[in-house]
């Protein structure tokens, strides 16, 4: 026995296995690809219309709208001013359109993640079994290199916006699921007992107690999800998602330093604006809980 060589699977067996799995997935794609794509049509529809809205609206209105949203979410004048300057710079350096496309994509991805992730997080909080099953799945989703799961996504949907956004959602959804679960599990047991003692149904208990009390934690999850969605913009560009990832790819292929850095900076500016605004919003939501007596 040779101890320097690891006993490998037979080459032929390995090849057969590979063929079987690849072939099987291709079969699956041929059989169900279209119906899955149809099922996901609302996502595509929302993305397309939101993108068009941002692109077709005159830029001053969009800029004012963005500053307005940031101000009402955070009530911070300096952050609002920063948003104005940051977005103006992005536009001045020729990236307005790409920034709008990116904004549309991460908004859609975030919305999708929230709509899917919060119910999953709730299910996980309600049942230890679900939690035991979900945890390793989430671990895989978070640690698997994102290029790897681009492969089945491309096989299923080809190249374009939809595969891009699906890839972003897969990558960005774990924090919202985890933090919804955590937030609900951390809700004060006595307050839950109070809800039960007054005869609440489990729906009332969920909507009146568990979600509101978990909201700060859930908001932290939303914030992380947004940040992760932004981090995926360039990877998603690889499968054809439009936006600020495209100039980065072009810059890599052609060694355009300025183009790469400026698109990167634009992503950073968007990230900072969204992060600060959503965090400030989360804090404002729970401000009355922190006030001392």
């Amino acid at each position, binding site marked *: 026995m040779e101890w320097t060589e690891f006993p490998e699977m037979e080459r032929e067996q390995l090849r057969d296995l590979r063929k079987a799995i690849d072939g099987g997935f291709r079969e699956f794609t041929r059989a169900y690809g279209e119906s899955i794509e149809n099922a996901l049509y609302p996502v595509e529809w929302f993305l397309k219309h939101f993108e068009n809205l941002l692109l077709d609206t005159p830029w001053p209105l969009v800029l004012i709208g963005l500053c307005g949203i940031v101000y009402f979410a955070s009530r911070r004048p300096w952050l609002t001013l920063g948003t104005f300057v940051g977005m103006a710079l992005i536009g001045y350096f020729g990236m307005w359109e790409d920034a709008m496309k990116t904004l549309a994509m991460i908004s859609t991805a975030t919305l999708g993640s929230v709509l899917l992730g919060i119910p999953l997080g709730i299910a996980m909080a309600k049942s230890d079994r679900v939690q035991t099953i979900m945890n390793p799945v989430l671990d895989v989703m978070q640690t698997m290199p994102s290029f790897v799961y681009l492969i089945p996504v491309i096989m299923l949907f080809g190249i374009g916006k939809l595969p891009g956004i699906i890839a972003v959602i897969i990558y960005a959804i774990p924090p919202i699921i985890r933090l919804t679960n955590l937030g609900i599990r951390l809700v004060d047991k006595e*307050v839950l*007992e109070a809800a039960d*003692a007054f005869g609440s149904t489990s729906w009332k208990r969920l909507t*009146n107690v568990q979600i509101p009390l978990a*909201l700060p934690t859930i908001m932290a999850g939303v914030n992380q999800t947004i940040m992760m969605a932004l981090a995926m913009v360039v990877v998603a560009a690889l499968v054809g998602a439009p936006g600020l990832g495209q100039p980065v790819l072009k810059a890599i292929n052609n060694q355009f330093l300025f183009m790469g850095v400026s698109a990167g900076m634009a992503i950073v500016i968007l990230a900072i604006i969204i992060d600060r605004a959503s965090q400030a919003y989360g804090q404002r939501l729970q401000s*009355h809980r922190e*006030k*001392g007596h």
Partner: protein
Amino acid sequence: MSGIQIKNLYKIFGEDPAMALDLVKNGMGKTELQDQHSHVLGLQDINIDMREGGIQVVMGLSGSGKSTLIRHINRLIEPTAGEVIVDGVDVLGMSRSDLRKFRAHKTSMVFQKFALLPHRTVQSNVEYGLEVQGISSSERRARSKKWIDRVGLSGFEDNYPSQLSGGMQQRVGLARALATDAEILLMDEAFSALDPLIRTDMQDVLLELQSELKKTIVFITHDLDEALRIGDNICILRDGGIIQKGNAQDIILHPADDYIKDFVKDINRARVLRIDSLMSDDMTNAGTLKLKRDTRLDDAARQMQEADVINAQITDASGKVIGSITLDDIVNSMVEKVEVESTV
């Protein structure tokens, strides 16, 4: 039958309560069960008959099973064995939806750490039970307003719980419980988290409301002073079992064991004991001052001093003389307390 009856109630926490139940019924104690079988004995063979319209106090040290017991009345905890009957209805036989209705209409609860909803205002917290009952928002508003006034929180309707002191937060908890008009009020160490002065305040608030509302109250406390002050009937728990039941007098005069003696020794007896506990038949020197039989010793001593007498007649509720008492007896019974203390 009205009121609350608890019969042969057992609660054991652990993997296999049925197995542990047999052991407990065969005489195994809490420590043994914990050490040898890692099951926790929550309650054992509890039998209480709680009168409608009265205050039943349940007293015991931390971990004695008080919270577990009170949570069986509205079935927040399922028993291992036994019966809980409220107003003649078996609580344990209720379906999920009957139980929800029972909790929404029949019982309400006040919690040690208040358990208010931090994201709701005072008003909206007090409305919670009414909301669950499905009452319209205008009626909710009116009814909650009334109870907010009654507990002395007018003007704080729009504050959030975190903006209030502990005592005020518990007033909200009390108003929330009273607003549903439930006949049964379950109070689990409701005043234990409060400072002593505030606690006395809240006891007064409760007793005053009770004199008018006549609810069936189950009041949990670990403090004997509080128990004696609040309770018509007191039962004392240790290691999940009842070791004494009775009124304040019974417990002070005849503590069932050393555990209770320990509790009783620091009590101001003159404030709890009634003069008929020291009554004698000897009417030769009874004087002319008349005192009702349920007068407390401290009150009697004060009245005798004011009248400048050392003897008094004791009368029953109708005013008929039934015996006598001397100032000496009163003083002696107070001194007895000091002796107990100095021997410890």
